[in-house]
């Protein structure tokens, strides 16, 4: 079936293809209508109740931050789905791919637009799950499956922490609505639970956005098809964590803990990732590590938290999405048309693939931060914000300087080398890709150029409204420009270019040297991950073998031990035995019959426990049963006593009949464990006695009994109250009881009549 489908030539992936392009395009156009209100500084808030009993609303908050994200998601989504119609359109599983991609898009849009934190979490998990499905799209490859599971476990664990954080935050702020929570920053930051909330939220954000030390899953996630890498693991999903931090900035930000956590983790990720990017030979991996670098930088500047830093963050967010998506799409075309992504193999593709080269080149120039592209603006404003910091100035500026210089090198590696020079031999003869593929990089490249030349548009549409939302101050005046004067930031840019150019010139020996350095480094995260998983499995195996030994005796021992510890601990913790017991009063007025029956039952029980003879045991059980019936008679329960007697006779008869076919009791092999068993049994006996003494010493609630006594005759016309309860007031219970007995009888009948098996569990042929 799948094969014949694959043979059908599909135009742009068939209906699945063009529908998948139309949906994000329609959403993009739809979202544009909110631009006016948002750019004017008026967030839109609409919603309906979803689960009102739990204070969960399906509400939408459209402000500068969420609209920027929504437009990036739907806009890049349109280009990526269009691209996929050609990249994967003939893949037999293409419709499945489209389904996952659409699922992701819904999740991502919901994540950035939700005003309710619980709803946000649900969408957050949808992106995690769809990311898992998309990374593992080539499910027949072990590497894909491993990468997918790794991403799922890392981000899923972070997601659980995030959920716990949401619940704490909801309790502290008294609402799950972001629009209300964000206004209570002072209350939240002063609350004793603030550190816990912060840690839990950051655990979610850092795993999602692959911040050090959770960075290792993202490069592995590049096992996904390239459109997925471009979309999820560069432009949108991995920015979910960044979105969360930016979104929560008014509520959680501004403290020292927030500042240092984000600045240190973000800064370290930035430098670490950009160094690793230079080390790669697979261009897609180069881009993966530069994405990590960008995520680190965004985290760093959210942490820095000044208005200038937030402005730089918002500008860089848009800038990065534009050029990185374009570069991913570009390398996808190269891979598709030449069959390789190896930086040492690819040379001189420019003449064969001019339009791809054009789109990629503009994006690369933007990544290198060269004017007049928008990447220059992004870098300038990061420098400016870094230099304006009143603390950690050197760390932040230095981090960005190192990262920008290395970005310059990475841009050269991913575009300059493959497209220029003399054409080299590749697995497939290179030629230009179809328009549906090169339109993406070209359009995104044009936007990089357009926003660079017209920074006011970028400012008015995205950066200013976004900054207001993240910084929480709608009065702050954002001012983006390409070039105004020669200042420190501009000089830093020039130094960046010079450093970058030098590094690019020596990048091949540098790569070899870095390779040796990282080889020698004993701390490796990816193999470490495997060891963590192995350890987890070993732990699970160990505790399963411990608890699930397969030996009935041990199970029962565990159950009773748990019971003993549970009751004992409760009595101890609640100090429940804190009363005087009136021993003398309780035995006063007791007659011979009382003592006799108690002695009978006790002796019968002990005898049953210690005897090795079956007949003695049956007789002793009979004594206990008759003794209990006598207690019922003495204490005014004739109906119960009759039933008890009947049942007791039946039990003894049944056991006696069964004995004819059963062997003697053997005890010899239990001897070693008997003292332990006796100790546990004795403990439970004492505990039950204590609980019961506690019960009879307390007050009794007779309300139900009083009701039955008064209601029996007037309402049910019965003078035997116990009978009336059974057949009238609680008739359904009695019916259930009868059903239990019938089911037991049927099951016993089936057991007695069923097929016989021999000791090995085989069905003997010759028996009937």
């Amino acid at each position, binding site marked *: 079936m799948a094969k014949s489908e694959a043979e059908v030539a599909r135009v742009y992936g068939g209906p699945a293809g063009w529908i998948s392009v139309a949906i994000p395009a329609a959403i993009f156009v739809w979202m544009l209508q909110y631009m006016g209100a948002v750019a004017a500084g008026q967030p839109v808030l609409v919603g309906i109740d979803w689960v009102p009993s739990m204070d969960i609303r399906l509400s939408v908050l459209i402000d500068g931050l969420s609209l920027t994200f929504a437009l990036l998601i739907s806009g890049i989504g349109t280009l990526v789905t269009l691209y996929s119609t050609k990249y994967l359109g003939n893949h037999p599983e293409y419709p499945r791919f489209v389904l996952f991609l659409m699922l992701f898009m819904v999740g991502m849009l919901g994540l950035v637009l939700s005003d309710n934190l619980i709803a946000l979490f649900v969408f957050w998990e949808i992106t995690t799950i769809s990311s898992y499905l998309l990374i593992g799209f080539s499910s027949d490859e072990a590497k894909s499956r491993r990468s997918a599971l790794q991403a799922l476990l890392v981000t899923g664990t972070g997601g659980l922490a995030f959920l716990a954080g949401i619940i704490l935050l909801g309790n502290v702020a008294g609402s799950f609505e972001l629009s209300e929570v964000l206004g209570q920053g002072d209350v939240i930051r002063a609350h004793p639970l603030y550190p816990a909330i912060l840690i839990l939220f950051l655990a979610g954000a850092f795993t999602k956005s692959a911040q050090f030390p959770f960075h290792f899953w993202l490069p592995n996630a590049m096992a996904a098809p390239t459109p997925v890498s471009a979309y999820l693991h560069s432009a949108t999903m991995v920015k979910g964590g960044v979105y969360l931090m930016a979104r929560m900035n008014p509520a959680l930000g501004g403290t020292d803990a927030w500042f240092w956590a984000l600045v240190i983790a973000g800064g370290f990720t930035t430098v670490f990732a950009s160094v690793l990017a230079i080390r790669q030979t697979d261009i897609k991996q180069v881009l993966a590590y530069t994405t990590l670098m960008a995520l680190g930088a965004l985290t760093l500047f959210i942490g820095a938290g000044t208005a200038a830093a937030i402005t730089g963050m918002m500008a860089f967010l848009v800038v990065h999405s534009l050029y990185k998506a374009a570069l991913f799409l570009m390398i996808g075309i190269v891979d598709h048309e030449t069959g390789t992504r190896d930086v040492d193999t690819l040379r001189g593709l420019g003449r064969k693939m001019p339009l791809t080269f054009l789109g990629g080149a503009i994006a690369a120039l933007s990544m290198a931060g060269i004017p007049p592209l928008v990447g220059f603006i992004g870098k300038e404003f990061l420098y400016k914000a870094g230099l304006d910091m009143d603390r950690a100035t050197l760390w932040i500026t230095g981090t960005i300087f190192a990262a920008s210089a290395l970005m310059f090198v990475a841009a050269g590696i991913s575009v300059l080398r493959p497209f220029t020079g003399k054409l080299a031999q590749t697995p497939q003869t290179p030629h230009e890709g179809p328009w549906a593929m090169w339109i993406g990089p070209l359009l995104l490249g044009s936007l990089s150029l357009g926003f660079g030349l017209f920074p006011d548009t970028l400012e008015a549409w995205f950066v200013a409204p976004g900054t207001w939302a993240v910084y929480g101050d709608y009065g702050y005046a954002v001012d983006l420009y390409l070039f105004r004067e020669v200042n420190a930031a501009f000089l830093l840019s020039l130094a960046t270019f010079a450093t970058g150019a030098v590094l690019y010139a020596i990048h091949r020996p540098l790569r070899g040297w870095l390779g040796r350095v990282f080889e020698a480094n004993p701390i490796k995260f990816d193999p470490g991950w495997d060891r963590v998983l192995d350890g987890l499995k070993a732990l699970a*195996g160990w505790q399963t073998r411990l608890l699930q030994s397969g030996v009935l005796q041990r199970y029962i021992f565990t159950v009773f031990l748990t019971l003993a510890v549970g009751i004992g601990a409760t009595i101890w913790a609640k100090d429940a035995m804190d009363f005087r017991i009136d021993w003398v009063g309780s035995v006063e007025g007791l007659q011979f019959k009382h003592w006799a029956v108690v002695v009978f039952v006790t002796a019968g029980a002990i005898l049953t426990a210690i005897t090795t003879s079956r007949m003695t045991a049956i007789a002793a059980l009979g004594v206990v049963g008759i003794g209990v019936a006598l207690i019922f008679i003495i204490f005014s329960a004739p109906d119960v006593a009759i039933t008890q007697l009947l049942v007791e006779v039946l039990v003894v008869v049944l056991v006696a009949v069964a004995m004819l076919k059963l062997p003697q009791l053997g005890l010899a092999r239990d001897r070693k464990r008997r003292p332990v068993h006796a100790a546990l049994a004795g403990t439970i006996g*004492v505990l039950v006695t204590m609980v019961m003494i506690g019960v009879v010493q307390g007050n009794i609630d007779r309300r139900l009994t009083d009701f039955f006594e008064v209601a029996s005759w007037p309402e049910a016309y019965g003078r035997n*109250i116990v009978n009336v309860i059974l057949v009238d007031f609680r008739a359904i219970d009695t019916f259930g009881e009868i059903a239990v007995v019938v089911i037991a009888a049927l099951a016993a009948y089936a057991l007695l009549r069923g097929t016989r098996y021999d000791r090995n569990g085989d069905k003997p042929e010759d028996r009937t």
Partner: protein
Amino acid sequence: MELLIAIMVGVLVAASVYLMLARNVLRFLFGLILISNAANLVIFASGRLTPQSPPLIPEGADAPVELVANALPQALVLTAIVIGFGLFAFALTLVYRTYQNLGTLNSDEMRLAEPVEAKAEARK
């Protein structure tokens, strides 16, 4: 008397737990009978013990004239006795069939579902 019953129930429970911990499933079964008796006594005695006044309404009266025994635990215990018997009868049949098929009453030797060899292999 309630205190005395409490101590007696303690002995009953101890004896039944001891029996249920045995490897011989017949002894387990004896423990099961004892523990259901013990449970019934706990419920019964928790409703307080009243001698010589069963919960009946005399002719001509709408409700008991003087204090009568607590009817509610009696009704509960009645149900429990019957259900306990159903459980016991089924368990006894199970023991009987197990012995017929496996030839043993030792629970350690009943390893059809979780054979010892398979476990040893899983450990590797």
